[in-house]
């Protein structure tokens, strides 16, 4: 009797274990192969990166010749920065005529605008990557983690379908699908999906490493433990972009402690806070606030914007879709009006586009998602638009 139960127990245990392994494997397979994850998030990442590069290069236009052009001679060949291939030195050559430098600089701006628009992203991203790498390695005295991070994530983006949404590529694909005729690559779409999801995992993990590793270092430091670290950062010439503001903030020990502790804890727990919707909203709001604070008060805006753009992948597709549903009609109306104006001679009164285009805070749009909205779409409109519209799923 007792032996029987024992055998049965082991058998059940084994059956339970294999069942669990099988269902976990199936869930993993489905996650990696059945749909492209964070399809809107990576589109926002693409748009964000394009804007960051474009804005930064335009903002530095006046200083370009000292930063990376012929005026960088004091840095040239002095500081060993990396072991990237030496053919990269051909680009942004400091001893070439200045107009060739400017031409490449402008080309990089154009490429980053194309990245924003999502035009031929699969070609634009690798070319942009090479030029970006080449520009920033010309002067090793200029650099921060944001440059490294953007470079690495651009590399992961080579595998990701970043222009599946909100892009010219997506529009072209839709038009081609509407014109009929399946894509030549239709039977390989599963592989693109697999690579996309692998790339998304790498981007997510990369940002986790940034936060968690930096928190692991911070918790070793006495200034972070005693909540005074932010005060010391504020004291430096280097990070005194708004000295009057940081001076006032630095007087309040409590404020400094709250800021110092929250910086450590939000970073350390970031991956875990993402697991549940309520804590995810908290994490994203808190970390975005932290980045904006660092960006404005310490002059590290490009670094901060890079982090914010990457964090955008953690907002779910349904949230972006809800935002799109609310904003698209408004934007379309505005666009139609802009487009019509040159043709129709009588000037229309300026439409109140502004107040309607209120941006939703993170997560708010998802909260707004109701059955009513979906129902009003008619005929059981699916919550998730079929990914087949952009690229047919294979097999």
């Amino acid at each position: 009797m007792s032996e029987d139960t024992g055998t049965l127990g082991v058998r059940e245990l084994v059956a339970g274990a294999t069942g669990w392994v099988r269902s976990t494997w199936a869930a993993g397979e489905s996650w990696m192969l059945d749909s492209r994850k964070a399809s809107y998030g990576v589109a926002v990442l693409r748009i964000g990166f394009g804007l960051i590069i474009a804005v930064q290069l335009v903002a530095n236009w006046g200083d370009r010749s000292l930063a990376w052009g012929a005026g960088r001679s004091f840095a040239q060949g002095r500081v060993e920065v990396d072991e990237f291939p030496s053919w990269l030195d051909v680009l942004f050559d400091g001893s070439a005529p200045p107009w060739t430098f400017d031409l490449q600089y402008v080309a990089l701006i154009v490429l980053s605008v194309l990245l924003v628009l999502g035009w031929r992203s699969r070609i634009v991203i690798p070319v942009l990557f090479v030029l970006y790498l080449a520009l920033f390695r010309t002067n090793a005295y200029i650099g921060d983690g944001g440059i490294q991070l953007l470079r690495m994530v651009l590399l992961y983006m080579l595998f990701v379908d970043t222009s599946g949404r909100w892009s010219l590529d997506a529009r072209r694909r839709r038009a081609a699908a509407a014109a009929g005729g399946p894509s030549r690559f239709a039977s390989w779409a599963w592989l693109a999906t697999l690579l996309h999801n692998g790339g998304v995992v790498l981007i997510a993990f990369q940002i986790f490493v940034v936060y968690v590793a930096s928190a692991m270092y911070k918790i070793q430091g006495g200034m972070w433990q005693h909540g005074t670290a932010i005060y010391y950062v504020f004291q430096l010439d280097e990070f005194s972009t708004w000295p009057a503001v940081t001076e006032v903030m630095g007087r309040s020990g409590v404020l400094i402690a709250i800021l110092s502790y929250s910086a450590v804890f939000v970073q350390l727990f970031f991956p875990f806070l993402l697991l549940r919707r309520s804590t995810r909203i908290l994490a994203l709001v808190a970390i975005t606030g932290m980045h904006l604070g660092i960006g404005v008060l310490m002059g590290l805006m490009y670094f901060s914007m890079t982090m914010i753009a990457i964090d955008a992948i953690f907002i779910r597709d349904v949230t972006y879709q809800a935002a799109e549903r609310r904003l698209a009609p408004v934007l379309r109306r505005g666009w139609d009006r802009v487009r019509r104006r040159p043709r129709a001679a009588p000037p229309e009164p300026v439409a109140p586009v502004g107040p309607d285009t209120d941006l939703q805070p993170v997560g708010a749009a998802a909260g707004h998602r109701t059955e009513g909205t979906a129902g009003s779409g008619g005929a059981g409109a699916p919550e998730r638009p079929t990914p087949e519209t952009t690229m047919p799923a294979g097999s």
Partner: protein
Amino acid sequence: MSSAGSRTVAQRVALVVVAALVAFHMFSTFLWAAPTSAINDKASPVTSRHMYPLFAQNWQIFAPDPQSVDLRVWVRATTTDEAGVESVSEWANLGDVFNEQVRHQILPTRTWRIPVSMNRFFTTSYSSLEGQQQAVVHSDHVSADGQSGRQDLTRALLGTGMSVSTMDAYLLSEDSLYEFGTLAAMDLWPDQDLVAIQMSTSTQGVVPFEQRLTPGIQRPEEQFTRLGWRDPSPVTSQARAGFSSVFGGWVS
């Protein structure tokens, strides 16, 4: 088993390969970025080769403790005016010039951290010098022709028993510092002819947190590492034009 039929062998194989590569990259990334550990010691011969240089990264941001000293770079010059009268300028804090450009800027110039980075780079290489070698670089090496001062410096450094490779490594950072100073001096004192350049780095601590509200509290005294006079660095007209078109605008 219902899902088993819906996947092809090719899909399964590709999935396993991609998952393995992703897992390996994640493992390597974590080891590279996290503080050292025994796992790192064992795995890094493989993982580091995978990470470098494309995925090299460092997230020791303001950690373990934020830097609590200002790092500065200073320059002064001996110049002659049109009448041929020689004079020595005041010390100019190059960090201030750069910091001024980003004050109240949301989208700051990327050039702003050059002096701080340069201080770090130079200080690292200067600290590797021994006492006698440091004495050599603190002394003046200038020449009447404005060109052979550097030979004098290298001879003196080799005279301390320093190897050529160690000296070259040091001189990379000193040359960089003096070329930066020379370019800056040309704009700081534009109507003068440069005869010699002197550079200094400095560090200055901040008021400790506990004493921040004490009335009349002063920062600790600034500590200078003052190098000797050198001949102005040779700069090409192109480099001069590129530097001056930006820096010259800031200081004029």
